């Protein structure tokens, strides 16, 4: 029985098990760590707001047909074009008579897809460059970090623009273009984390047990780097969403008739003065979602700062 549980008013039951300062198993320790992080996050109202927004995005994207009908998002009804907000059309209709609410709902799928695809490209790429750089050092480090610095020195949107211009418009190319400009910070981060842990005693113990470099990297260093990578990713999400929306606004993202928030703002521009909702509502969706990621990321960063 640990000291914490003897305190008056200390948590008992499953909470006590989670908060036990002397966990009996690796499983319990890991769950306890997650639970403590959750308790810290729960105290931060803004971060919780962010979490709710992000979860709502995921939920709406996954279950879009429950929230709006697919037909009203795609069917053109020219007699209904540019209708103001009403019970039938909560956000009005666009220049082709499609329901803006339904298009915003289905547009969340595009946003979530871009964010997810960029994450699964950028994180492994950053780790693949940063881990060997930090672990082996020497000329490998010098070469890899020089390459990283070169990419870091590029303006993201402009480079994405040039890539998109050469590859042609489309959501896949937008994802490639964003990924190519988004990985360098992860390489830097992975390298820094690796440098922190490389000389640790448990790494030396693993070396003495005959573990290969690859094994040490993947079973020891990658898990230790993950928390800071995830925080960085959450904070980056807003930037990724804004870049994707910017590309969409310029006509380089998802192509019509696919609902994409940036492209929706762009096509509503010409009706801005008379039918303001066509351009502003999808922009509001971009804003709310990227704010959600920023709030959550900010809260997560505070959490990791106070622990460290």
């Amino acid at each position, binding site marked *: 029985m640990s000291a914490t549980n003897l305190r008056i008013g200390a948590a008992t039951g499953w909470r006590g098990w989670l908060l036990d300062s002397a966990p009996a198993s690796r499983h319990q320790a890991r769950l306890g760590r997650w639970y403590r992080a959750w308790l810290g996050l729960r105290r931060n109202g*803004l971060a919780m707001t962010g979490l709710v927004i992000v979860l709502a995005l995921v939920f709406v994207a996954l279950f879009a047909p429950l929230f709006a009908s697919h037909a009203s998002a795609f069917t053109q009804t020219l007699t209904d074009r540019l209708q103001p907000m009403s019970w039938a059309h909560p956000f009005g209709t666009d220049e082709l008579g499609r329901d803006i609410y339904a298009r915003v709902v289905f547009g969340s799928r595009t946003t979530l897809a871009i964010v997810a695809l960029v994450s699964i490209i950028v994180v492994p790429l950053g780790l693949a460059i940063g881990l060997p750089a930090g672990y082996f050092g020497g000329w490998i480090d010098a070469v890899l970090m020089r390459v990283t610095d070169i990419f870091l020195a*590029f303006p993201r*949107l*402009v480079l994405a623009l*040039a890539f998109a211009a050469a590859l042609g418009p489309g959501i896949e190319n937008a994802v490639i273009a964003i990924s190519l400009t988004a990985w360098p910070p992860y390489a830097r981060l992975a390298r820094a984390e690796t440098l922190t842990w490389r000389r640790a005693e448990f790494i030396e113990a693993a070396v003495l047990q005959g573990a290969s470099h690859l094994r040490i990297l993947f079973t020891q260093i990658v898990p230790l780097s993950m928390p800071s990578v995830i925080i960085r990713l959450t904070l980056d999400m807003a930037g990724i969403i804004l870049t994707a929306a910017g590309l969409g606004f310029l006509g380089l993202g998802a192509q019509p008739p696919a609902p994409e928030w940036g492209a929706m*703002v762009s096509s509503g521009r010409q009706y801005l003065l008379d039918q303001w909702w066509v351009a502003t509502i999808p922009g509001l969706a971009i804003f709310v979602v990227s704010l959600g990621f*920023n709030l959550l990321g900010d809260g997560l960063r505070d959490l990791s700062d106070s622990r460290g």
Partner: protein
Amino acid sequence: MSASGAAARPSPVRRPYPTAAGIASVAHRLARLVLSVILTFLGLTLVTFFIGRVIPIDPVLAIVGDKASKETYAKVAAEIGINLPLPVQYWRYLMRVLHGDFGVSIITAHPVLQDMTHVFPATMELAVVALLVGTLLGVPLGVVAATNRGRWPDQVIRFGSLLGYSMPVFWLGLVGLLMFYAKLGWVDGPGRLDVAFDDIVTPVTGMITIDSVLGGEYDVLWNALGHIILPASILGYLSMAYIARMTRSFMLGQLRQEYVLATRAKGMPPFRVVWVHALGNVWVQLVTVVALTFGSLLEGAVLTETVFAWPGLGLYMKNSLFNADLNAVLGGTLVIGIVYIFLNMLSDVIYPLVDPRARDRR
């Protein structure tokens, strides 16, 4: 305290004359900096070369069009050296870029570099005014947030900054136009000037606000300010968010120092301690932040210019993009990339010049 006790410590006073080791260290750092700038520049050109020559499936076809005869095709293929080995092609490309030859724009039929000299001042003007707005608001807000750490002003400023980080600049531009131009009529609409004021001022710098002052045309200046204030404020708000945040964290570092306590104990008013002494110690770091912000402003300009029909680099690139004018797009990418490299270099050079601590760090 005895004199010997003080002498035993390493002297914090810098020698008034340069030592051989000092010169060697400066030369070493300079060499490193030059090398890193050259490498980054090579990397930049390598990427633009790759985008322009390797990604398009047939760069010759992209130039001649699919209705061209075999002879034309062969002629152009030989001209751009498409059959040469890639390293040779890259070398030729690099030489052309170094001679300022970015190719000819398809839309304007002018050399890309010549177009750049026309559109770049407009972007510079926008970015500079935006930077002024961002710095003049961001620094004081950061200081206020730091001195009120954890209290409501800090929270409000932090939330305001997060809002700034989260807004799509093109959307904010449209909302701004809708409110301040269409509904309230406080500012002038898209473009740099009203049509009536076009071509009055002789271009010297290409920045209308400066040129109009030089020519004594204050009506034009007033009109230009009415046009630039909204796009510049919107761009400036986004950079303000970053500048305020960095100022806050630098100031927190200073306010923890003992000299702050000491000056307070001696009876110096808190206002002076914060705004003169503590802020005086962070401005070097702030210069770096502002320089880097400028780079992101150039980028934000691409979208802002599209919304405000601002005839700058961003609008030029956007229009080129839709006419498959790859030379112009890559030329713009190179110019912005070079400005980025230059700004990074500048902050690397300025930093040790004004901060001895950074100079002595190895």
